[in-house]
């Protein structure tokens, strides 16, 4: 059970008067075991502030990168608090592990981990406000109700606003086990309320990381070794320093920083800088040599990630056996806002401004880089111009380097990555190579499924398995009697990390396209086979049936149009997609995507729809265009001219159908990415009879 701590009496919030609540989360959950989830028991987590002047402010401890926690988490609090939504304001609080636990958002966890705690906080605050009003009126609490930010006396009709009651409420003991609203009473949860961040984002007022400005600030860009793992051998700054506006040139751990009076002068200075690099051992690496290593690794024994029955016996006794190899390339995150960080490091303290998914870790890394205790660093959370995993745990390289540089300069500095820096020094979605084998019984139904995964590891091995590298395969929902998914790490010097729907984004492609191969090998309809294999997974079966119905699966299409289906689970939600395509003279067009989704209870259907569309378009960019290639240890792509992404004229019509549900919420931000590539690729097979076993799709090769 959660329990609530009244923080306003413990002096946590310096000058803020009124009622401030923090709360404590249950100690264990699967997410927490993975290190992503709530803080340990006993640590306060989030709070609501009701100021005497009437302003209600919610502290949002999840970074905002478009996925909507600022609004959705506020809805949870506002619903139970029973306040006036039009008076709600949301803020990013300072980093404070004691108050909030670890402030981080990865794995679409905002709503699914905060659903209970935020509602409990709102309900508890409401109960205390009611208690204060009852005391003031000398009536029993049961005679009071709440209405849009006020407590109403049931007998007299008198009203006391929350702001008038806040100080008195804060002095009351914190009640335990306050009941939550019956969902039938919801007037904010489940409603498409407008995003709280929109007004600032359409006026230029919203401050992203790159918009931080500090008095006396310099601007820097860093020359980084183009080869992964390389370092500075020597450099000559003479020409760089001659560039107008360049103030100084300083070596830091990440490379050579050119510091100027504007970003432009720093960029010009870097062009003039002469650096000799010690390129290191990765300088011989290229895409072909990495692929050869993956192929060799795939032949080696792997660690078991998922096992059912006996795969060897299952394949041996199968009436028909098929094999295929699938692979995907490295991918860049490419958020619209390139990496950047602003730091002002002083002798005994520092301020750091950054757009990050993981504020607590960012503060720790900045502190560590300059030899300060984390609590000496004031971390300022900025809006993120996209994240997609690039600004999360383990991917915060852009933060400590700015702190290090500021310390060396003794002045505030903003370090900006150019688009080229961002694309060529990313931590990429790992390439992956998978050998698949499957067996059919005499009637053509799948009875054996084997995947041998060779993929870089970045989360560490547990019993030999990197759980991200096999996500989407190891947790397949299908009931197949003989199954084996195994894994061997195939590490390279290319830095890799989380990328929207990590693991699932490639493994759902592998699994759902190979299953499609099994369907056609058995002469079966792809939806029919999936239905049969999902009888023990009612929620996934539910979205499959919904997508089939809404896409008119099985009914004729206009000439030249073809369908493909894929299903999957990710971030605790269930999804099915049917893509409708045409392919003419080597040109592929995705016309329509029908998406059926079950994430349990929905907090904001408008934001949910945004996220599902967003994930589909993000996944299409990868499936149709995304490929990072390596030559001589360097990334060959550099900007949007050679790493293109989906544009407005390329998007399909997207239909979203959400299953009504009373289950606890699952995640949404990443959920729709994995199924789009396989549904399109399966539609391509329907159109051409050709299997695309390697991404990105190259329509010219399908003629």
């Amino acid at each position: 059970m959660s329990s609530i701590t009244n923080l306003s009496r413990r002096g946590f919030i310096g000058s803020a008067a009124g009622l401030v609540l923090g709360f404590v989360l249950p100690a264990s959950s699967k997410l927490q075991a993975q290190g992503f989830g709530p803080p340990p028991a006993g640590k306060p987590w989030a709070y609501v502030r009701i100021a005497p002047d009437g302003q209600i402010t919610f502290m949002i401890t999840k970074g905002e990168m478009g996925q909507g926690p600022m609004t959705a988490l506020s809805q949870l609090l506002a619903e139970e608090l029973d306040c006036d939504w039009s008076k709600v304001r949301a803020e990013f609080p300072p980093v404070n592990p004691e108050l909030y636990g670890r402030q981080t958002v990865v794995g679409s966890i905002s709503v699914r981990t905060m659903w209970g705690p935020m509602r409990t906080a709102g309900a508890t605050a409401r109960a205390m406000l009611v208690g204060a009003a009852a005391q003031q009126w000398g009536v029993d609490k049961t005679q009071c109700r709440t209405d849009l930010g006020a407590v109403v006396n049931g007998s007299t009709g008198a009203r006391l606003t929350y702001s008038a009651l806040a100080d008195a409420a804060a002095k009351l003991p914190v009640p335990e086990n306050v009941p939550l609203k019956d969902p039938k009473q919801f007037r904010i949860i489940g409603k498409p309320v407008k995003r709280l961040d929109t007004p600032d984002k359409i006026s230029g007022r919203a401050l992203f990381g790159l918009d931080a400005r500090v008095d006396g600030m310099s601007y820097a860009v860093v020359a980084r070794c183009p080869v992964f793992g390389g370092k500075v051998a020597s450099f000559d700054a003479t020409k760089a320093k001659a560039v107008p506006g360049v103030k100084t040139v300083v070596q830091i751990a990440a490379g050579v920083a050119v510091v100027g009076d504007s970003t432009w002068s720093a960029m010009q200075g870097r062009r003039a800088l002469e650096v000799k690099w010690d390129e290191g051992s990765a300088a011989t690496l290229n895409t072909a040599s990495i692929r050869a290593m993956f192929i060799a690794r795939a032949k080696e024994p792997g660690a078991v990630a998922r096992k059912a029955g006996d795969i060897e016996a299952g394949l041996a006794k199968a009436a028909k056996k098929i094999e295929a190899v699938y692979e995907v390339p490295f991918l860049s995150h490419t958020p619209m806002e390139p990496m950047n960080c602003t730091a002002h490091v002083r002798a005994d303290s520092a301020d750091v401004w950054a757009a990050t998914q993981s504020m607590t870790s960012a503060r720790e890394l900045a502190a560590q880089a300059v030899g300060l205790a984390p609590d000496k660093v004031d971390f300022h959370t900025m809006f993120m111009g996209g994240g997609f995993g690039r600004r999360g745990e383990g991917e915060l390289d852009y933060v400590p380097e700015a702190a290090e540089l500021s310390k060396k300069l003794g002045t505030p500095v903003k370090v900006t990555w150019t688009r080229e820096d961002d694309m060529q020094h990313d931590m990429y979605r790992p390439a992956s190579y998978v050998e698949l084998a499957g067996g059919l019984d005499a009637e053509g139904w799948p009875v054996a499924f084997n995947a041998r995964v060779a993929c870089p590891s970045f989360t560490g091995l547990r019993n030999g398995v990197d759980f991200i590298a096999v996500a989407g395969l190891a947790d397949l929902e299908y009931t197949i009697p003989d199954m084996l998914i195994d894994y061997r790490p195939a590490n390279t010097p290319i830095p890799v990390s989380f990328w929207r729907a990590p693991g699932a984004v490639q493994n759902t492609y592998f699994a759902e396209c190979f299953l499609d191969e099994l369907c056609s090998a058995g002469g079966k309809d792809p939806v029919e086979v999936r239905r049969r294999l999902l009888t023990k997974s009612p929620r996934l079966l539910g979205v499959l049936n919904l997508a089939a119905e809404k896409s008119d699966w099985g009914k004729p299409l206009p000439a030249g149009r073809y369908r493909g289906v894929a299903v999957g689970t990710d971030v605790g939600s269930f999804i099915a997609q049917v893509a409708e395509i045409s392919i003419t003279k080597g040109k592929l067009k995705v016309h329509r995507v029908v998406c059926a989704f079950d994430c349990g209870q929905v907090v904001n259907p408008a934001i949910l729809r945004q996220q599902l569309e967003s994930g589909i378009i993000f996944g299409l960019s990868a499936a149709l265009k995304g490929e990072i290639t390596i030559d001589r240890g360097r990334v060959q792509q550099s900007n949007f001219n050679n790493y293109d992404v989906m544009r407005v004229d390329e998007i399909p019509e997207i239909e979203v159908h959400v299953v009504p549900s009373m289950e606890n919420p699952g995640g949404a931000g990443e959920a729709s990415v994995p199924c789009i590539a396989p549904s399109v690729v399966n539609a391509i097979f329907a159109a051409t009879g050709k299997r695309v076993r390697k991404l990105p799709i190259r329509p010219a090769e399908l003629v």
Partner: protein
Amino acid sequence: MPAFRFTLNGQPRTVEATPEMPLLWVLRDQLGLTGTKFGCGMALCGACTVHIDGAAARSCSMPISSVAGKIVTTIEGIAMAQPAHPVTQAWLEIDVPQCGYCQPGQMMSAAALLMKKKTPSDADIDEVMRGNICRCGAYRQIRAAIHRASEIATNGGRA
């Protein structure tokens, strides 16, 4: 360093800068107008879009010397319009942004399009707006908001 005079959001401004310095960095670093965003530096993504003499321009690739004597409008200029600019109204109504970083550029491109074509078709929108990348994929909402802004501008918002 040479001085360059231009009109910025209705006010005369003079800046001293190297002639090659792009307008983007003059706006952001020298003048503190950070609504105009840096996305690619090569006029490939549209995040830095402003209006120069009423036409959309990529400020990341527009030397300050070429702006001398011209009229520049940024997202801050659009945002201060009274009554609210149709694009602002429509973007608010449709609740377009996700991360929001590209939206100032999207809005500036949309506003310039609407000055040229009062009621653009989907094809008109695609032709102009394909130059503005949104990694969140808010494209359907952007398209809807442009149609809505067109309605607001032409007949006060009646569909």
